[in-house]
């Protein structure tokens, strides 16, 4: 209370203005991307049409024709959804066991899982290409992208689920055990309903990370399983000929994810700091 009383009237007016200004500056590039996407390619590079122009949906309508957008978008959806699903299928039982039946090794296993996340991808680039191309023959398939996305996000998924499950009183789970509920029943009927919010935000965050991944999806695909990251990376238009259409396809690639992100910003902290910042 004392803090509020001390504040001068001036700072009570200036503070929000400053905060709003900074927020708008940070959001501006995204706004500009969407704004440019409504210009024709010709208008997009004319200074006289910087702000005033006749908006058009042409770039969005021609997105399929220009970039084959939907093929890449569908690949992104398929790979991200299945990678998230598999990460949960493998991660939930693991986090369940760790949270409710911890052993002396649990902490070390968790730390080790996290350390796999810190392995620089570039270091294993060639072995991965070699294995998938020459050995397993799964290079540029949805299966490969799903497996890789699942594995690079699995440590974060397990960590997040673990921190959520840990909050649930052990007694509830044990009561279930007394009543003779099977382990599967415990997970399905007691744990998941109780930790529903945590599981959902873990899934959401995992999905976002999969969608935005830009190393393996670019290096391990060519055409069949190429995702939106690959599409944008391949169409960087160095001479600015296609600013309009490039903006449209970029906006379509990031729009849904930015909106999804708004819903899980709180959980993001926990997911990214492995529960170390609360």
């Amino acid at each position, binding site marked *: 209370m004392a803090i509020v009383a001390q504040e001068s009237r001036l700072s009570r007016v200036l503070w929000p203005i400053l905060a709003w200004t900074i927020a708008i500056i*940070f959001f501006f590039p995204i706004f500009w991307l969407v704004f440019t996407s409504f210009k024709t390619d010709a208008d997009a590079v004319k200074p006289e049409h910087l702000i005033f122009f006749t908006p058009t949906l042409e770039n969005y309508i021609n997105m399929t024709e220009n970039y084959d957008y939907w093929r890449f978008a569908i690949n992104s959806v398929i790979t991200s959804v299945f990678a998230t699903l598999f990460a949960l299928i493998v991660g939930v*039982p693991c986090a369940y066991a760790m949270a409710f039946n911890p052993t002396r090794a649990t902490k070390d296993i968790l730390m080790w899982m996290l350390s796999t*996340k810190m392995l620089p991808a*570039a*270091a294993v680039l060639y072995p991965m290409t070699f294995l998938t191309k020459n050995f397993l023959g799964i290079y540029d398939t949805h299966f490969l992208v799903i497996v890789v996305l699942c594995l690079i996000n699995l440590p974060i998924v397990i960590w997040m689920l673990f921190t959520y499950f840990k909050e649930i009183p052990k007694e509830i789970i044990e009561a279930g055990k007394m009543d003779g509920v099977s382990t599967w029943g415990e997970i399905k009927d007691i744990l998941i309903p109780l930790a529903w919010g945590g599981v959902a935000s873990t899934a959401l965050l995992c999905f976002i990370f999969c969608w935005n991944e830009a190393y393996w999806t670019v290096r391990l695909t060519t055409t069949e399983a190429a995702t939106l990251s690959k599409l944008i990376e391949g169409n960087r238009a160095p001479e600015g000929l296609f600013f309009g259409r490039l903006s449209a396809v970029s906006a379509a690639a990031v729009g849904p994810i930015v909106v999804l*992100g708004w819903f899980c910003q709180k959980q*993001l902290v926990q997911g990214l700091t492995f529960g*170390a910042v609360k």
Partner: protein
Amino acid sequence: MSDRTLPRLLQTPAVLLLLVWMLVPLGMTLFFSFIRYVLNSLRRPEWTSPSIDNWRGFGNYQFVWNNDGFWLAIYNSVFIVTSIVVFTVIFGLAIAILVNRSFPGRGIVRVLLISPFFVMPAVNAVLWINMILDPVLGLQGIAVAGLNEMIDGLRDFPVLGGFFSLWPELSPISFRATQTSAYAVIIMVTWQWTPFAVLIFMTSLQSEDQQQKEAAILDGAGKWSMFRNLTLPHLGRPIAIVVMIQAIFHLSLYAEIEIVSRGNGNKNLPYLIGEFATNNIGAASAAGIFAVILANVIAIFLLRMVGKTLMD
């Protein structure tokens, strides 16, 4: 008995998967780093298949170590990572403190602020290098041209014109050039990751002990001394975590480097490894092992820090 077996069984798939994912490719990299292995060689076709007969010992490591490009890549990696980390922490702190109080529309401000973090790296790079930083067609080019025109107009003024004619013609910066392409990467990644720092600092600020602060006010503590002696120590841990997580992420920056200038002037270690990997797999693998060592030095500190809070 079943009390112990089942939990272990439930963990097995995850542990096995991650074990294979880590050990197999890394083991191969380690092996390749000790042999002569190139993809194309007309002179020495026997080197084109990975065989133990082509054993080279530490030769690949020596080759990479003595390669000027390697040290430049290390320098660029470290320069880019440190700059991003310093900027994001400073901006992140300032903005978190700014937003950490109630004012009209705070929810919307938060949403606007966090948005850049969800933009995919490829779009981030395309957007900044083309639409914003381009010296002719981007906003930078347009702004510089506009300023020049304005100054030109002012030169025709009586009296004051003399003053303005002393001003030089401004020239826009080309951010794809060797000297500047690293800055472009730093700008765009800082934009994307400052929200991450803001979010974490804000979360941490909310758990700050308010009673302690009020007690300090009663004792007549000033704002600055309160920030230095109470808030900053409270933020010590989050700052350390933001620094380390970013270090690990940004050491493997790739898409931004590729899109801005294809490694011209900002080639970092992952990019160099990618270039080696187009032919000289032995060298790429040795450089990869160096990258693993570099990342591990940071990872050890991070893991210790995270490990401390794990079980409480």
